[in-house]
């Protein structure tokens, strides 16, 4: 889809990497969830790709901590969330114990 939208190679690589990071988090911490990819258009008319990763897992108790480089509860490198934020133009994370976690990212063309 990223290719079809006309993303150049470097952005394709960013999108693939972020997808891998966030999908891996879903599987690792919430067991299951889903990913939605949708073409999107900004207020200024530019096109982009939005990716949503949502799960109904345990949620993240302290989002600020989880967004810090090196923070991990899973024996990882703690780079997935903060790294994904750096790789994308927009990054939003919502999480609660009741509803689980949803991460929404956008990369503009």
């Amino acid at each position, binding site marked *: 889809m990223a290719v079809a939208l006309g993303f150049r*190679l*470097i952005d*394709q*690589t*960013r999108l*693939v*990497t972020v997808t*891998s*990071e966030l999908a*891996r988090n879903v599987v690792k911490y919430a067991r299951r969830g889903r990913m939605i990819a949708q073409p999107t258009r900004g207020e200024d008319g530019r096109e982009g790709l939005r990716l949503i990763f949502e799960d109904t897992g345990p949620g993240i108790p302290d989002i600020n901590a989880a967004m810090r*480089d090196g923070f991990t509860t899973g024996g*990882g*490198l703690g*780079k*997935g969330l*903060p*790294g*994904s934020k*750096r*790789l994308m133009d927009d990054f939003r994370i919502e999480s609660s114990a009741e509803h689980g976690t949803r991460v929404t990212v956008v990369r503009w063309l």
Partner: protein
Amino acid sequence: MDGLQRIPILKVGRVLIVPIQVDMDDQTVMHLQERILSELERTGARGVLIDISLLEMVDSFIGRVLSDIAAMARIMDARTVVVGMQPAVAITLVELGLELRGVDTVLNVDEGIKLLRCEFDFNEEDEGEFSWGELSAFAEQINRS
């Protein structure tokens, strides 16, 4: 089907060459690490050359795998070189904030061989069955495929 056997480990002289071409799941990775370790033990190889030119991305998981292999190899007295990282992958890696600890990265297999060659500085007798020509020829094959 399980993907366990899909990553070959080739031994050329005193270097193990590991061309990673598939997306690795955790099991494949663990298995690969074990195999590299036992190959180092069995063959006394002094270098591990990991070719990632076919990987379209390196995420934090694969990054850690590469560092782990390097740490493991170091214990076995072998040096690890990662070759063939695509420029887009390299940029993404930096933005992600990954440093491949203990891993040297070079552009292609030839460079990797050069690096391993000066590291060990083999003289004629040391080389034994080893032939840099053989390795270079093999490298070319990989580069072309």
